[in-house]
């Protein structure tokens, strides 16, 4: 039986959606252990419900960053004799940091940005490249544990109705010099309306808007459609909107029913974050823009003319 670990994360007292997605996939591969960087008492039952039969928990990290602390705790458990065949990580900040540190401790390669995994003749993972038009399948050579990270929404989360798991303490060992970084304050940037990665409709703006003030049109349209506003990396880097708005490779992956791209040309970096949307509407003045290659409806025109009329028409409908 394949022994699968999932690096499990918590937000607001519940496992993150990404954690539940990975647990759902993991239980189709073998027996599942969730590894929590923190106190697991509030989320253990939910982890069990989605397929974990065992939960390791480090307890409070005391301000240490998860990368160095959780990887050290994982290494201690593995050295203690419970060694998994494969560890699944979410492709996000903490997931990447923990797997990176662990890969050095175990001297194992890492495979990131995956969307699928299969276990049979070895462990193989699949990752899309070139904006998703090519799928590369890679098999781990060498010995387990194999470390792989998966993009959000690669798998659908489904409850298995599992029982409460056994919870085992996995304390963080002495970190020495590597544990020097300490979090002294946490800031949460407020946002209103539905969450970007959960909204049924997403309206995103890009560099084609021309200037920061024009982003208000994107927010207005999103509000009218009861959706969430998003952004391309270009305007996040330019400081027009906070990073939490970013859709793409290094931002959020969204798969809404309707995605409206306004003034976005469609760089690979952006497309991998939204091409899973059911319906895509693009407005761009360059008819050669790559975004039109994946759009269900494309308007070749100036966003400064199209958006105000669209907003007005929707307002008129009440």
């Amino acid at each position: 039986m394949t022994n699968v670990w999932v690096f499990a994360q918590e937000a607001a007292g519940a496992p993150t959606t990404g954690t539940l997605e990975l647990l759902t996939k993991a239980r189709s591969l073998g027996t599942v252990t969730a590894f929590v960087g923190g106190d697991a008492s509030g989320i253990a039952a939910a982890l069990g419900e989605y397929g974990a039969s065992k939960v390791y928990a480090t307890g409070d990290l005391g301000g240490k960053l998860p990368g160095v602390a959780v990887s050290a705790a994982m290494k201690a458990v593995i050295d203690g004799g419970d060694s998994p065949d494969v560890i699944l990580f979410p492709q996000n900040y903490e997931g990447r940091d923990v797997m990176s540190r662990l890969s050095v401790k175990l001297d194992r390669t890492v495979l990131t940005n995956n969307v699928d995994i299969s276990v049979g003749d070895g462990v193989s993972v699949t990752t899309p490249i070139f904006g998703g038009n090519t799928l590369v399948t890679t098999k781990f050579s060498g010995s387990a544990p194999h470390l792989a990270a998966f993009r959000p929404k690669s798998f659908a989360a489904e409850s298995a109705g599992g029982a409460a798991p056994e919870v085992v303490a996995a304390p963080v060992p002495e970190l020495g010099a590597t544990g020097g970084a300490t979090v002294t304050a946490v800031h949460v940037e407020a946002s209103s309306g539905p969450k970007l990665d959960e909204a049924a409709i997403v309206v995103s703006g890009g560099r084609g808007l021309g200037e920061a003030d024009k982003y208000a049109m994107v927010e207005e349209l999103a509000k009218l459609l009861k959706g969430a506003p998003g952004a391309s990396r270009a305007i996040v880097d330019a400081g027009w909107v906070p990073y939490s708005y970013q859709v793409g490779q290094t931002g959020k992956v969204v798969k809404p029913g309707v995605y409206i791209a306004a003034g976005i040309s469609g760089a690979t970096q952006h497309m991998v974050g939204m091409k899973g949307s059911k319906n895509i509407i693009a407005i761009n003045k360059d008819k050669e823009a790559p975004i039109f290659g994946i759009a269900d409806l494309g308007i070749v025109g100036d966003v400064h003319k199209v958006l105000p009329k669209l907003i007005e028409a929707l307002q008129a409908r009440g």
Partner: protein
Amino acid sequence: MNVIVCVKQIPDPATPGALDAGTKTLKRDGKLILDESDSYGVEMALQLVDAAGGGEVSLVSMAPNGEVSGMRTALAMGAAKGVLVSDPALQGSDALTTAKVLAAAVNKLGGADLIIAATESSDGYTGTVPEQLAEVLGLPSVTFAKKVVVDGGSLKVDRQTEEGYDEVTCPLPALISVTAGVVEPRYPSFKGIMAAKSKPIDTVTAGDLGISPAGWAGAGQEIVDVAQAEARAAGEIVEDDGEGFNKIVAFLENLKVI
């Protein structure tokens, strides 16, 4: 204060990517340029050394073909010198091997107070090398830094998170990975470009650094299949004649979302 910046030289992102038919890895054989993501790290390093009132910025890079044009760009911005690890045996190296090679290059330079890397490269975007490098070097790290201040022997960093940001303190020496947009990279001046031509780049092989195996032999992974993803059906593309918004309204009505 001495700072080492990890820079990657990549194929121009404006040209379409292609896979080598034999090794099924990204072709990186032509002219390489400085990854734009790394220009932020170079700029940050130059500013921190300036603020400290002394020290210098050095570069470490790895490329299979001896290419230095990307490193020259960083030298033209103001970095003092660099180490390039160039070795055909490094072709196909995984992120872990890359981190070990860069760590050896950092040690060849005698280490530094601070190591800076981008959060991920623009061509491979594995995104693990900075944190792996910190672990190989035995250093503390702060990833996804969006604001960095040096205060005596320690760093104060605003670290990007999914929900906002954390304030983090970290003693030096340390490694940070910096997000794009953290500073505004300077354009190399003509004087800088001329000066860069004579700045030293020490080109070494993996063997010189005592790294083996590298490349395919050491990668721990094997590409078994490359397939085309299912293409989306072509949509309706129309020129806006002033009534384009009506097309969108009709499309949304049809989906019953309005």
